């Protein structure tokens, strides 16, 4: 599947390979939801392309073609479960199969299987509006999967859930989505880390970088990705980059290091409190470095923004090509 939307200041191409889960990672307002809505057919920009290849070959939208949402083999699950009130849980899940033309009995049988798969078979005859947020979202997942979509679109599926329910939902998705093609928009690194095979990082309506999960997270090439994984990122003149963890950077106040030599000098931009350390972000030539400061060696009180410090990156931090491999 591929989709792009030149309008709305969003110029992004999104490709999801069959059977894989792509995380569309980015901050709020990056255009992730817009991309999914365009793919589902809920938004119709003048100049967008949505195309399915493989078994379900279908041009959903290009300059000439337009396929309305209900004829696209895509299902969208948003952060809001949006269960149909006044219907039983079972009939909610049976909605898709029924719309497809299955008889009530067959649709309900299929729905029962999916309810079972999300662990809520016991709630089949409950009314949809009586469920908790976490239960409702699991029913919504069963309802989406019951349509056997070629691509399942997830738009921040955990954003409205509390910590426990989100964890349960993540575990459930990890188990159920193994063979499904999924595009998941999220701002949360944990979602991507737990569920995705591939990552597309979006920033300001454009794709910042893309690639397999481990590659993108371990070798960030965009400042936003680096900050998302909590690392610094420095591009060096020789075309390579380093992205050390804050624990791999030692920081000293400027005049103290003149003697020892080495390291890069920069100004403190931001100071954050972390569990057992003070983390500072330092603007250095070519990028930004994060460093955990041990209060025993450096008095954190002198590290106000603007202070000049010297950062020494530990040996053994990998350097890699600045542009995508």
């Amino acid at each position, binding site marked *: 599947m591929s989709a792009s939307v030149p309008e709305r200041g969003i110029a992004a191409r999104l490709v999801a390979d069959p059977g894989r889960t792509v995380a569309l990672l980015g901050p709020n307002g990056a255009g992730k939801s817009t991309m999914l809505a365009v793919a589902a*057919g809920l938004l119709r920009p003048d100049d967008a392309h949505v195309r399915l290849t493989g078994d379900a070959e279908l041009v959903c939208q290009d300059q000439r073609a337009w396929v309305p949402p*209900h004829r696209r083999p895509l299902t969208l699950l948003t952060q809001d479960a949006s269960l*149909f009130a006044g219907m039983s849980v079972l009939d909610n899940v049976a909605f898709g199969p029924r*719309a497809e033309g299955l008889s009530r009995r067959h649709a309900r049988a299929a729905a029962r299987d999916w309810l079972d798969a999300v662990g809520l078979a016991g709630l089949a005859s409950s009314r949809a509006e009586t469920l908790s947020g976490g239960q409702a979202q699991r029913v919504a997942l069963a*309802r989406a999967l019951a349509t056997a979509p070629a691509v399942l679109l997830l738009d921040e599926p955990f954003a409205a859930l509390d910590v426990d329910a989100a964890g349960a939902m993540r575990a459930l998705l990890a188990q159920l989505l193994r063979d499904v093609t999924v595009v998941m928009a999220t701002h949360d690194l944990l979602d991507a880390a737990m569920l995705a095979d591939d990552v597309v990082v979006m920033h300001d309506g454009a794709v910042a970088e893309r690639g397999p999960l481990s590659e993108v997270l371990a070798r960030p090439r965009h400042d936003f990705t680096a900050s998302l994984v909590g690392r610094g990122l420095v591009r060096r003149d020789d075309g390579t980059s380093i992205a050390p963890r804050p624990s791999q950077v030692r920081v000293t106040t400027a005049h103290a290091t003149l003697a020892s030599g080495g390291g890069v000098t920069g100004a403190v931009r931001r100071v954050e409190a972390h569990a057992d350390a003070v983390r500072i972000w330092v603007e250095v030539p070519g990028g930004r470095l994060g460093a955990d400061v041990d209060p025993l060696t450096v008095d954190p009180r002198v590290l106000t923004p603007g202070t000049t410090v010297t950062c020494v990156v530990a040996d053994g931090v990998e350097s890699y090509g600045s542009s995508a491999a």
Partner: protein
Amino acid sequence: MTAPAPAGTRTRDGAASVPRWLVLPALVGAGLIVLPLVGLAARVEWGSLPALVTSESALAALALSARTVAVSTLIVVALGVPLALMLARLDFRGMVVVRTLVLAPLVLPPVVGGLGLLYAFGRGGLLGDTFTLLGLDVAFTTAAVVLAQTFVALPFLVLALEGALRADGTRYEAVAATLGAGPWTTFRRVTVRRVWPALVAGTVLAAARALGEFGATLTFAGSLEGVTRTVPLEIYLQREMDADAAVALSLLLMLVALVVVAAAYGGTTRAARARTSSTSRGTS
């Protein structure tokens, strides 16, 4: 604080206070509405009531009203639901004009509406010639009564339903679409279900308005016993000749009105309350 509340007490909303001096005009207003109803009930000859409402002319009027209101209510639903859906969901130029025109009968004097109907569908009217060619002569027939009732009642349903459709938004319709449901399935299984209380309330109000229709009916359909003389027309006629009969029929309409208001507004109030409580439960 944690002591159990004694039976019969309840917690009141501390913030719900009103300016005390507004109580007087409120009472006067309520009295103005309630007193005529009481006056009517006080004037009823209870002993002769059964005989009065089963007289030949009264029965003819009641039967005619029942028939015409049933038909016009069906037409109101069949035409009003699509109309409300278009007004709520489509966004076209001239929409404001269309809505204004469609809702005009709400505030138009019914006599004016009757005249309009006459010059649209009556003999010599806009469509009158066409109708005559087809062998139809609508004016001063029972069909004219139904037309007049539909004309005045339709906006009640459209107004109630359009508001509900707009308030409900298209979120659930979008969900249904991504689940593979076409527009008709979505409308039938999702939209109608969600606006059901408003649809019922709007239909009941429209039926009540049709039942009470007087001015447009008299102008467009006349007052022929058994053909176009509905209950309101019968009441107006009897008022001069047999006031007791007029009062008896009026009492009937009054009871219908009370039942309708209780059903329509009681229902929507309950639904609104249920919705509020379920929302607050959802966010807790």
